[in-house]
């Protein structure tokens, strides 16, 4: 077995993302600072300045321009990266649609932070959740290890010839971005072996001078293009499964894939979570199991494409299910809840509850999880806000 140059370091989520960008051999980085993403950009600027990464780094004047320049750089055939958070992600909303529609496998790291007013810099997934309709794939990380690994895996999935859609990788503000954890830094040459170089079939080429994104009337293939985006997004489900397997084999890792089932084999009640709040959930599951309660937790990693089949398999035998939304959207119910319920429509009789929790960085505690699990035993499907108004 070849000696692997693998090190284990204590690092924050932001540093882990920057290290992931380095391992992925990104060649162009364009970003605009916003708390709490700033350290990613600073770390990358430092790496570029010290020749630790062979990339061009530009600091642009707005997030809209960050995404525009990342997009056109990717169009020339260069693996490109940007990062943002909260209002920055909202500012580039128009460009997110344009990048996905252009079928460019850009990767963006998003540090999940609340949307104002009022100004709030703490963990809340509203920023990326409200971008779920842009055609970008979405993966939510629970640990700094996942924050790093999702960069390598993310590019690999996005650049797959049958996918060709951009992907955003989320980590919660401060809980992951600024908290240090031990992280295994994958071997550099193994990483290059795994990811290779970007090979864009329609990159800017003088010998083949194309128009990129011209005017299309109703009888042009507009609907076909959009359908192809959707089809490609859902083809990505198999690609994520394959790549997860290959990634775990290559790096001796245990990246869960589309979802993670925690103590679900004989569970009666389960909660569906996303992001770092899942760790508290798992702790509570263990605690409640000691008391004899048969509970489990399903953690969604890939929110787009939505892993409907995997969730359907996981909920077999449950008596009650709850879905946590750490975001505020104004549909009938929370965003993740709506996706879960749509996937399970006509396929289950289990009552499914919706919990809204942790907005604006409000702490998600063990006793909140205990309350949520107890709530599932009441057997109804209401929407409940946890730890709001002093309750």
């Amino acid at each position: 077995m070849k000696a692997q140059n693998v090190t284990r370091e204590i690092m924050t989520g932001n540093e882990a993302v920057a290290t992931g960008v380095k391992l992925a051999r990104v060649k162009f980085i364009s970003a605009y600072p916003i708390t709490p993403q700033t350290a990613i950009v600073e770390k990358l600027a430092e790496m570029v300045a010290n020749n630790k990464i062979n990339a061009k780094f530009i600091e642009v004047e707005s997030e809209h321009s960050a995404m525009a320049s990342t997009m056109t750089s990717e169009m020339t055939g260069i693996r490109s990266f940007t990062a943002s958070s909260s209002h920055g992600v909202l500012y580039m909303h128009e460009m997110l649609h344009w990048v996905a529609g252009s079928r460019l496998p850009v990767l963006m790291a998003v540090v999940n932070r609340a949307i104002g007013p009022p100004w709030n810099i703490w963990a809340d997934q509203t920023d990326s959740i409200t971008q779920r309709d842009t055609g970008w794939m979405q993966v939510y990380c629970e640990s700094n290890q996942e924050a790093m690994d999702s960069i390598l895996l993310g590019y690999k999935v996005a650049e797959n010839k049958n996918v060709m859609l951009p992907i955003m990788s989320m980590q919660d503000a401060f809980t992951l971005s600024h908290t240090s954890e031990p992280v295994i830094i994958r071997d550099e040459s193994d990483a290059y072996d795994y990811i290779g170089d970007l090979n864009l079939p329609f990159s800017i080429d003088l010998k083949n001078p194309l128009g990129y994104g011209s005017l299309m009337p109703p009888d042009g293939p507009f609907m076909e293009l959009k359908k192809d985006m959707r089809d490609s997004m859902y083809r990505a489900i198999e690609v994520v499964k394959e790549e997860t397997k290959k990634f775990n084999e290559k790096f001796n890792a245990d990246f869960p894939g589309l979802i993670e089932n925690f103590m679900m084999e004989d569970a009666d009640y389960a909660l569906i979570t996303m992001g770092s709040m899942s760790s508290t959930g798992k702790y509570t599951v263990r605690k409640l199991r000691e008391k004899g309660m048969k509970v489990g937790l399903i953690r969604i990693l890939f929110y787009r494409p939505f892993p409907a089949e995997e969730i359907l398999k996981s909920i077999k035998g449950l008596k009650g299910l709850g879905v946590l939304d750490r975001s505020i959207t104004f549909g009938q119910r929370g965003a993740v809840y709506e996706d879960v319920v749509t996937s399970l429509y006509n396929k289950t009789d289990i009552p499914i509850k919706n919990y809204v929790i942790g907005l604006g960085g409000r702490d998600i505690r063990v006793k909140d999880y205990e309350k949520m699990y107890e709530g599932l035993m009441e057997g109804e499907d209401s929407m409940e806000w946890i730890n709001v108004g002093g309750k």
Partner: protein
Amino acid sequence: MPTSIPKQELMMSGHAACAGCGAVLAMRYVLKALGEKTVVSVPASCWAVIPGNYPAEVLKVPMVYTPFAATGASISGIREGLDIEGKEDYNVVGFAGDGGTADIGLQALSAAMERGHNVFYIMYDNEAYMNTGIQRSGSTPFGAWTTTTPIGKDRTFKKEKKKVVADIMMAQGVPYVATASVAFPEDLIRKVKNAKEIKGPKFIQILSPCPPGWYHNSEDTIKVSRLAVETRVFPLYEYMNGKFNLYKTNKFVPVEEYLKIQGRFAHLKEDEIKEIQNFVNERWEILLKKEGN
């Protein structure tokens, strides 16, 4: 007889521009100056629809279409990406209208110029949001009718003076800034070629008359563009390597000659025309002083 401008055409016929459009002339001349190793980025603008419907393309070089505000950032990304691939000899051109430059695109333009990328930014100035049907922009001149500055009963034509983006670029210290007119293609092409010698950001504002928006006959496009220079309404200048050079006309042509062939100024009264003449004279003095004369 040898032609006074390069023969090579990098723009084709069959496009969907209006008859007599100044913006296509601007593109035609710019590409003649730059040659085929060029990548063009175009935001939402007349130029985004001039090539016609998908899959039609009118240029013999790659053309990237972007959302409205993105031109400055788009050319930055194209430039860096090409440079990383060792294609530093490719020209990267942002080709945007006055709306996409003076208004919604100003932020990205100013930043791209400040970052110093080796790119061209060409602003084709038809003095309003023409693609969406003649609405006023920051570049619309005083006195002009537009759909959002209609005459109405209170004579609410545009009362604000034209914001000249080229002046802003000079104030920012962009290494090459020039104004040009489609009536003087030899000069325009010479300017683009001068700019090409500079490795850094370059800005050229080209006055591009618009027959439907300016309400002039399609055959008068060149005449209008020439008169704009001769009446000093649109002075031609070149700012290169810190030196400012104003092209001086040798005879005085009253502003009325320029205004009277355009329907968008038809409502102007004598005192308003005098006001415009005063604005023109004032600006001319300022530019002369800038040159040190």
